[in-house]
């Protein structure tokens, strides 16, 4: 038992820190830190930088061009890049479709798609949810009918994050009707530039455009884009959930946000003193910080405990991770006080210090609070996570 980082891990941390300091464009970092909107380019530029270094896929096995990073290295990488204000990596290709392709993809799929992901050539998105399916994923209806060496896909996906930017989408589609709904589902890779695909934005309650509806009208997909066997898509989807290497707890980003809270509290005045000296605020920051420390230790414990990906423990990390993200955003909004109210869309854009009302750092905080309501809903709502834990860990 030893909770200190090894010398190697320290060296790795230094290397990451130095690289990020040298290479991360400062305009992107400041947009991230100030909660401004990021463009498609902001993400692509940063991921290109990492791809050139080989670090975009450092967590991949070397046989697929990765660097075999240990879980602790992954954590350190996440922590250092988040601390510096790097955009989060878009996970759909890197951490979601990739593990599925590594396990079940054809040699061609592996060579072609994994290669392009590694080089950051495709922006992927995820086609799971459909209108009405929600947490009950297996009720999906989008159909794929085999015609010669194509599938003809018709139907609709929804809540598709960044579909407006995407080149590729991986979809669960129904290739057969059966008594068990989980059977007859297949896993298909679809070019977003195909004829017949329409993307319609869904605007969230903070005015943000992150998610979309995606309509498929007789879209023709070559059969070589079927992953694994027809009808086994549900198995692959479950495998994906279990092997998602996404930093589900978001510790690195939350640590950055807590530091931002401290800085804000040190800048803002309340009754002529620094807000940081206002006992209720100081205490809430301390309690969030302590919660985050406990979460971080739990992440490290889960990561160190096994070489392979966490099972139901991931649900614990997701629960606490999202609760803490929401608590941070709630405190931030409270610290904004009356300046939580103004909604000046230009203030969310880059380099717009002049447009805001009140201290510039406060402009996005209430919108962010509202936006972060999503984290306890998507990716399996927190109620679903608790159901999973009750069943699989507690045996209830």
């Amino acid at each position, binding site marked *: 038992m030893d909770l200190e980082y090894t010398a190697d891990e320290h060296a790795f941390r230094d290397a990451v820190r130095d690289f990020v300091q040298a290479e991360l464009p400062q305009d992107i970092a400041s947009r991230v830190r100030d909660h401004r909107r990021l463009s498609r380019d902001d993400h692509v530029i940063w991921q290109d930088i990492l791809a050139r270094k080989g670090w975009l896929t450092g967590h991949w096995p070397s046989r697929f061009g990765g660097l075999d990073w240990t879980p602790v290295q992954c954590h350190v990488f996440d922590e250092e890049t988040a601390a510096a204000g790097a955009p989060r990596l878009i996970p759909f290709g890197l951490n979601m479709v990739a593990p599925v392709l590594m396990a079940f993809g054809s040699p061609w799929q592996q060579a072609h798609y994994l290669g392009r992901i590694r080089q950051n050539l495709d922006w992927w998105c995820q086609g799971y949810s459909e209108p009405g399916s929600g947490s009950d994923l297996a009720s999906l209806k989008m159909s794929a009918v085999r015609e010669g060496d194509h599938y003809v896909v018709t139907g609709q996906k929804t809540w598709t994050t960044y579909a407006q930017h995407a080149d590729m989408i991986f979809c669960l589609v129904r290739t057969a009707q059966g008594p068990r709904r989980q059977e007859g589902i297949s896993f298909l890779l679809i070019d977003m530039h195909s004829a017949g695909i329409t993307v319609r934005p869904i605007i969230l*309650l903070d005015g943000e455009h992150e998610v979309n509806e995606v309509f498929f009208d007789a879209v023709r997909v070559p059969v070589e884009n079927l992953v694994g066997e027809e009808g086994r898509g549900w198995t692959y989807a479950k495998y994906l959930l279990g092997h998602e290497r996404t930093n589900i707890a978001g510790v690195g980003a939350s640590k950055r946000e807590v530091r931002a809270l401290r800085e804000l509290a040190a800048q803002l*005045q309340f009754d002529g003193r620094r807000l940081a000296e206002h006992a209720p605020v100081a205490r809430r920051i301390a309690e969030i910080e302590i919660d985050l420390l406990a979460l971080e230790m739990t992440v490290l414990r889960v990561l160190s405990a096994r070489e392979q990906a966490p099972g139901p423990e991931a649900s614990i990390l997701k629960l606490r991770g999202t609760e803490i993200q929401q608590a941070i955003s709630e405190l931030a909004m409270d610290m904004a006080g*009356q300046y939580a109210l*103004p909604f*000046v869309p230009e203030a969310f854009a880059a380099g717009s210090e002049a447009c805001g009302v009140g201290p510039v750092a406060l402009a996005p905080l209430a919108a962010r609070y509202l936006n972060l309501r999503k984290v306890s*809903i998507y990716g399996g709502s927190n109620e679903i996570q608790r159901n999973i834990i009750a069943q699989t860990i507690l045996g209830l």
Partner: protein
Amino acid sequence: MDFTLTEEQSLLGDAIDRFNARTQDSVSRRRRLESEAGRLRTMWHEVAALGLAGLLVPEADGGSGAGMAEVMVMMQAAGRGLMVEPLVATAVVGATLLVADTDVSRRTRLLARLVAGDLLLALAHAEPQASASMQQVLTEARCQGDEYVLQGAKSLVLHGGEADLLLVSARTAGSPQDLEGVSLFLLDPAHPGVVKRDYATLDGHRACELALDEVRVPASAMLGRAGTAAALIEHALDRGSAALCAEAVGVMETLLAQTTEYLRTREQFGQAIGRFQVLQHKAVDMLVQLEQSRSMAYLASLRADAAHREDGAREVSAARVSIARSARAFAQSAIQLHGGIGMTDELPASHYARRLSLLEFWLGTREQHLERYMHLKQPDRVAAS
């Protein structure tokens, strides 16, 4: 002790509900908000025709001569329909101030316009500097001959952009935290030296920032006696707070109905999601929050109606704090129970949740009201006695 509404009061609520059913929907709301004053003003005439603009104006002045009970009824209905009209700014806070004007001819003239829906008002009192006290006034009004020169800045002036007349608090004597020395001025927003920055707020209303740079007004622009406006402003703000409390209750009523309806109709895993006990209990907690808020809205309204007394102020702040806490949790549950769809701008429920989430920052934040509650001396008996 009697919590029942009179028939007249009930009818008032029904009338507003009907009006809202006809006029309030997401599209028209957005259009009114995004447009310049013109469209808003058309609607405001209709609102005035319902008797709402002059609700608090004495009958002798052409108003309804109603009290805070009626304001509560009005604001609950406004909340149910998510009205974006400047009821609080004009009909509650503004009217309370104008009614107190001691310049009789001006009072008569302005109240007539107010009742007719021809006068939108805004109290410019809060300032950019965060303070535990809602009574801090840094803006100065220097007396020069028979003029005053206003210098300072005002923040989050509710519906200040549309206002025909601003009511500006400024210090004619004393230091920033003093109650003595605060005066109130009637100010034309087009007056030289007045710079407005008008903007939308996240909860679907509008406000402005106000910079006052060497704004010269005649001494007659003052409402009431010099240096004595603090109590009147506090009273007007408490009435505004009580109105917000009632509005929160109305918002919760609609939002709870929308949420339970969704729970009853949305199916997952082969059954209505309202069959899941965890979701049921979350909805129950929303109901409890609503009922506690309803109780506190009654208390706030009645206390803000009486002659302004210290325990009244304390209880109004208690109501704001209580409702702010309930509203926060309530809105979170409403969104969570709706799932993804609850996050979207398309769903009316999300607009209600947004208003409910932000309400606590108007006319004194939760933090300010809690500090005020704690610092006001506790009377011998707390509640309703």
